């Protein structure tokens, strides 16, 4: 995410929090474990260093590190305090000068609680997200939108300053408390000289250098956002990806790319390009040709059904989901991906492995007889699958957790061998099953498109529901079937596409599909 800096009132930039009254009130909203206590201590220290009296409070109720927490500091000039000043122990709505939010939804929480008000509050927020559990467990995408919070922040605050302070901290080998402290200094909202903030960090002890770097980055991002933003633009992804491989294959690949240009409308090309790459990576260029053949058929149907006016959505969505369906997640693919050189390089980068380190990689696999049979030639696989006794016996041999080291020659070879089964994949039971499923699904969509274009697009989109492995995969297929079971009832309705879309959304809300069942019940009453 690029740096952003927004100010509701540019003229307020020079205004210190002390303009209003003698006490500066500052609240910090963080997620437990983000170092809210550290930054609170720093703020107290920098205040005392500048001859101010500071009173800090917090509610660290439990030791756990994951809940939303609030720290609160009040500061008053020592000579005005006259002994021990009478200060509040908790923030009040409408009475906070500075709010520091270590995470975007915590900024939202501060706004919700009324701590951010347009007459006085400078809101300094890190735009990164630490996802709450309920955002992560949704089978679809449960991530809360940050944009409404940013809009609310602009409306609710006197000044709203933001940057991805978490990234800045990590880039500098530190944690967010340091960059957030820097952001506070950079906002120049406290009447303390910038170098006194640094003195506070230096007096701290451990990790001073990294803290200072993150502090300065935070201060720069907030205090001089234009310069900071220009520094980070370079990381925008650019250029086309290179393709390497044998000459013959590369030529064939070039031919496929030409087909996309020649045979398909511009609107569908980017998705086709992505889809093509996925299926070729999954199998080979020949499979890529098959993909384009399927898509050509889809496009022809699309054109015949007035797709021009619809922006060829049917083709675009088909390009996406047919690619996903053709590149199904089988044992061969997993083994192939796990043994690639690029994968080990990626892990080494992520784990910060250097020349002086050695890395071992352990995989957690749990194959079942279903997966093994899927890899077998269709006849043999089917022979076993259709004989429950035999299947159970063989399952007992196979079905167990295998924690294997793919950096060792033995297990690398085993996976390498399975990955090599790619060559016979198209004769496998799994391939047959997947292809049949794919064709049934496409013919259902194709049968729908002459009557209801939008509904056909939604039928294509139902494929989103199928994902995961083993039981999760089975649940996905069951959701797919349940959603499509509504098709006969919906056909002919003006709002059929909307309803099917709603069903897909409902199916992605919870694991077992309880929301979906509720929605289906509603549909039966239509």
């Amino acid at each position, binding site marked *: 995410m690029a740096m952003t800096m927004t100010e509701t009132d540019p003229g307020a930039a020079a205004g210190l929090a002390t303009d209003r009254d003698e006490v500066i009130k500052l609240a910090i909203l963080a997620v437990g474990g983000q170092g809210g206590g550290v930054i609170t201590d720093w703020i107290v220290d920098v205040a005392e260093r500048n001859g101010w009296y500071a009173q800090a*409070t917090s509610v660290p109720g439990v030791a756990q590190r994951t809940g939303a927490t609030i720290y609160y500091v009040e500061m008053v000039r020592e000579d005005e*305090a006259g002994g*021990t000043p009478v200060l509040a122990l908790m923030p009040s709505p409408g009475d906070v000068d500075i709010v520091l939010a270590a995470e975007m939804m915590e900024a*939202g929480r501060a706004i919700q609680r009324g701590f951010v008000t347009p007459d006085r509050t400078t809101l300094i927020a890190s735009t990164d997200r630490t996802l709450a559990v309920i955002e992560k467990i949704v089978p679809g995408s449960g991530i809360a939108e940050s944009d409404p919070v940013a809009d609310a922040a602009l409306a609710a605050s006197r000044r709203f300053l933001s940057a991805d302070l978490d990234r800045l901290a990590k880039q500098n080998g530190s944690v967010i408390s340091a960059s957030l402290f820097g952001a506070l200094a950079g906002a120049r909202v406290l009447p303390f000289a910038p170098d006194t903030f640094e003195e506070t960090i230096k007096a701290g002890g451990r990790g001073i250098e990294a803290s200072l770097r993150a502090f300065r980055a935070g201060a720069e991002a907030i205090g001089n956002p234009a310069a900071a933003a220009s520094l980070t633009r370079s990381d925008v992804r650019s250029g086309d990806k290179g393709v390497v491989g044998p000459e013959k294959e590369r030529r064939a690949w070039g031919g496929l790319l030409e087909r996309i240009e020649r045979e398909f409308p511009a609107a569908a090309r980017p998705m086709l390009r992505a889809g093509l790459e996925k299926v070729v990576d999954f199998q080979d260029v020949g499979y890529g040709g098959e993909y384009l053949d399927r898509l050509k058929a889809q496009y022809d149907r699309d054109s015949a059904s007035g797709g021009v006016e619809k922006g060829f959505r049917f083709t675009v969505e088909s390009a996406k989901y047919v690619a*996903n369906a053709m590149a199904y997640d089988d044992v061969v693919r997993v083994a192939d*991906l796990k043994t690639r050189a690029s994968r080990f390089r990626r892990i080494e980068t992520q784990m910060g492995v250097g020349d002086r380190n050695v890395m071992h*990689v352990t995989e957690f696999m749990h194959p079942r007889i279903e997966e093994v049979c899927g890899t077998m030639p269709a006849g043999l696989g089917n022979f076993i699958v259709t004989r429950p006794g035999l299947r159970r016996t063989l399952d007992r041999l196979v079905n167990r957790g295998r924690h294997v080291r793919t950096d060792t020659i033995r297990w690398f070879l085993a996976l390498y061998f399975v990955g090599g089964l790619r060559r016979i994949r198209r004769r496998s039971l799994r391939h047959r099953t997947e292809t049949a499923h794919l064709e049934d699904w496409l013919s259902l969509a194709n049968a729908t498109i002459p009557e209801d274009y939008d509904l056909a697009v939604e039928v294509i989109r139902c494929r989103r529901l199928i994902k995961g492995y083993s039981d999760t995969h089975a649940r996905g297929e069951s959701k797919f079937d349940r959603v499509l079971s509504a098709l006969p009832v919906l056909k002919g309705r003006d709002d059929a596409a909307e309803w099917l879309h709603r069903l897909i959304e409902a199916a992605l809300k919870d694991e077992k599909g309880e929301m979906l069942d509720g929605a289906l019940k509603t549909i039966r009453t239509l």
Partner: protein
Amino acid sequence: MAERSFAKEVEQLRIGAGEEFRGEGILAVTKALLECGVGYVGGYQGAPISHLMDVLADAQDILGELGVHFEASASEATAAATLAASMHYPIRGAVTFKSTVGTNVASDALANLASGGVNGGALIIVGEDYGEGASIMQERSHAFAMKSQIWLLDPRPNLEMIVKAVREGFELSEASNTPVMLEMRIRACHVHGRFKARDNVKPKMSLAEALETPKRDLNRIVLPPASFLHEQEKISKRWPAAVSFVKERKLNEFFGPADGNVGIVLQGGMYNGVMRALQRLGLADIRGNTDVPLYVLNVTYPLIDDEFLDFARDKDAVLVVEEAQPNHIEQAFGAMLHKAGIDTLLRGKDPFPMAGEYTGAVMLSAIRDFLRDHAGGLLSDKDRAPNEPEAPLVPDLSKVVPPRPPGFCTGCPERPIFAAMKLVQEELGEHHVAADIGCHLFSIMPPFNIGASTMGYGLGPASASAFNVEAKKRPISVMGDGGFWHNGLSSGITNAVFNKHDGMIVIVDNYYSAATGGQDIPSSRAKNRSRSTSHPITDAVKGVGAKWVRHVDRTYDVGKLREIFREALTTDEKGPKIVVASSECMLNRQRRERPLLASAIKEGKRSVKPRFGVDEDVCTGDHACMRLSGCPSLSVKTLDDPLRDDPVAAIDETCVGCGNCGEVADAAVLCPSFYRADVIHNPSGWDRFMARLRTRVTGWLQRRRDASRLTFSAGAA
């Protein structure tokens, strides 16, 4: 080993007269105890006074130098009973615990102590866990003071006043032969402030002297007829003594003008909140000046009749600021006014709300309403007749901002226990699960959604005891090691053995009283120079007669736990099925191991650092793993890939490599996306040799395969 070390801060406990002390409220309390010549201190951890126990533990050397004995009590009841040492002997003692829950547990001992009365000053420091951030039922400690006749101090929340309250608390206790309770509210415990210190004082009489010259006063023992005598003595002697001490020493305070037609009576703990409201109304400043007369009750029990009546007599209306309910103080004042025939209007729970915390917003609106009704002249035009403020144009975020309750930490060893329990319930159906107090209670929230009740610390198994009947499913109960040693061994296990309870009891053993900050308990495995630890829970349960006992010494083994749970829930064997699931609290483990690992790496020793990762091209974004985890380091991220609708799993650098992800993926047959990378720092020659050999072979194989197919360069979607 506690979560937070105060080893540095406790050095301040040595400072002498005239020096300035700076620090947190709880540290100030400790210093005050030493200045008062306390002879012994005990207590049981729990927010918000956990850190007080940690401070005391870290201050053992200083305590030792002064001859002060410190006990980490087994429970609040133990702590309260410890005060018996002040019954016959002129030795000052103090105990501390969380309230009201700790006071509930302690109340038997407290009632006996209060009946017989004390000779040496006895101070009970209660951490009042009320309001935002509280983890317990919302009640008041006030009723305990009233029912047992224990004096209750509620000082203004600044360090000077808190220190003064400790000092005067001991004196009041000795002057009236009555134990004194000092109420510390959450924020006061953690408030950072300063005060002028005094010299530390050694106890006047040591515990050893008392032991060597024992005393015994039959009149102090709670047994008829002395117990009847005690009740009379409370009223005839101790109460009047306390009232005159409070009056003479001016423990309660008056602020503001002597005259005025209205006044505010407040609990000391409410002072800063009241003053902030008055400041915002333009009626007070931060130096403590106020235009409204204030009567501050630093002592909220006993109430001093004539102080209050004198304050109220010539006023039109008096507002009582008394947080939470019932409104004991307001009721008492009402009765006083009525009996004295004074017609001053008494207001309290109107304009204040009957229930709930007195936050800044509540305080401001209630005091403004009160003044508007009775002293409008004091208010500005705006406050007297406020125009309805324009609703600010801030969008409603209630549907956007997700709730973020506390949950299991990164790498928590309790996560796999509940993952296993969730998996076994998928096989055997949902069961009734009685939960308990402790970190493990987070199981009730997503993603686990396990646990139907919590009845009190260590009472998980006890709260399943009614379900000891023939049924197709067995009851499950959970208890932590903290609760187990606190009382669960007898209330839960012994009870289950004795009553032939047929359910499954899971004891979560994480080596510490973890939820309260990682204090040591009898089954802790770390060496503790002043306590006896390493007493296995399995031995204890077998000792009270449990037969079906299974011990898992690595909770991350989800498959094994699931197997044991399945067996416990389906076996034909009768009697309690006890599963002890042990793994060290990850917070504490990391705190212990991380510095060791860092220095080992620095010193060039071979060290292994594990961390998990996700192959994002293998992950399909179904999030099944999240529903068995909820780990902060396991999150989701949106890929820059137009073919993907849903975010995929991602593990960040805070991962501690606990193993849950891999175990769960295996046990629940989720997916093969997870891997563990063990990075070896300072590898041995053998490590290097093997790595070179392996890379040579695998590299050749990889090149061979890449030569026969297309490879899309890195950065490919």
